[in-house]
């Protein structure tokens, strides 16, 4: 009895919502008779500024260390590993947070990356890596994605801070300066080719070129 009632109420709701939508559409396609064109343009511009600002603010909010470590998958696995590396604490006190390496800085690339990253929300909701064991099993696949991305964009995120032009090789150790001159400056290799596993632990590296 009550189920029938609620069904009827639901149907009523759908019908009313549909009627409202049609009415709204009618209003939207009819020219304004009350407001001047100038008022509409200025109001639209102001609303646009507020909307754009809000969108960007929300986007930047998802680009913080606090947001990334909000999920236990990140906080207890990759973030815990980052803490012992030079990108977390170092002599000059500059920290590379998650988005510095994992999100491109310029806008179009950033939006593309953010759209890709929506898969991570899906993964979180359905618990793809919600235990340590699951994460360890999937680690190589996840790492391969990141390496492929760095390789494809010539280690763009590394170069946000480390550029070959501003690198003073006389200040580097002899090993580093030789390697950078031979492989980086000639464009033969990109950062990620040699610097894998500098911010997180490595997965099982058997089969990865250059590793045993």
């Amino acid at each position: 009895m009550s189920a029938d009632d609620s069904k009827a109420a639901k149907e009523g709701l759908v019908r009313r919502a549909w009627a409202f939508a049609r009415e709204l559409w009618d209003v939207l396609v009819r020219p304004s008779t009350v407001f001047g064109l100038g008022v509409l343009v200025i109001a639209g511009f102001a609303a646009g500024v507020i909307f754009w600002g809000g969108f960007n603010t929300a986007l930047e909010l998802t680009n913080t260390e606090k947001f990334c470590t909000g999920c236990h998958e990140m906080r207890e696995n990759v973030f815990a590993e980052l803490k012992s590396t030079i990108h977390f604490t170092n002599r000059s006190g500059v920290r590379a947070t998650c988005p510095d390496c994992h999100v491109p800085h310029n806008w179009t690339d950033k939006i593309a990356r953010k759209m890709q990253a929506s898969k991570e929300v899906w993964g979180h909701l359905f618990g793809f890596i919600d235990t340590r064991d699951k994460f360890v099993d999937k680690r190589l696949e996840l790492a391969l994605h990141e390496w492929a991305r760095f390789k494809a964009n010539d280690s763009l995120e590394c170069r946000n801070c480390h550029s070959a032009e501003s690198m003073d090789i006389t200040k580097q150790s002899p090993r580093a300066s030789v390697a950078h001159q031979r492989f980086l400056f000639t464009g033969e290799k990109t950062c990620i080719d040699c610097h894998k596993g500098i911010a997180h632990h490595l997965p099982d590296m058997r089969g990865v070129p250059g590793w045993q």
Partner: protein
Amino acid sequence: MTRNLHIVLLVLAIGAGTGTLAAQSLNSGLRGPTPLNDEGQASPMAPTRNTSEREVRNYPEQPPVIPHSIDGYQVDLNSNKCLSCHARARTGESQAPMVSITHFMDRDGQFLASISPRRFFCTECHVPQSVTNPPVSNDFVDIDTMLSRAAPGGRR
């Protein structure tokens, strides 16, 4: 009566002992001026020697020391950062010395295709060096110096 006297003597002896301990600042050379019963300040960490030049071995069997920094190098079941330069196939690109052929042998003396599992953990024998003044000097004399002396096996 004698028992009471013993107790009194014992108390006096303990009292005298603790008094002396508290009065003098016991210290040994390695601890510096910090008294034995105090925890001193940790000495500053010495920087790691970071070059690409090999160090001379003190005796033929000595595992070569690592002349460069190995901070953050991962050597575990998953990967071996050292081998990404020192493995046989990697030395052409890295110009690093190859891991010794003895490391390819299993315990029966059979040569394997790659590093034997028992030789996998490099830092069990090979260690980086820090740039510091050792608190205790070393009077080790290597065999060549020993043999070149006028009276072999003589004065040390």
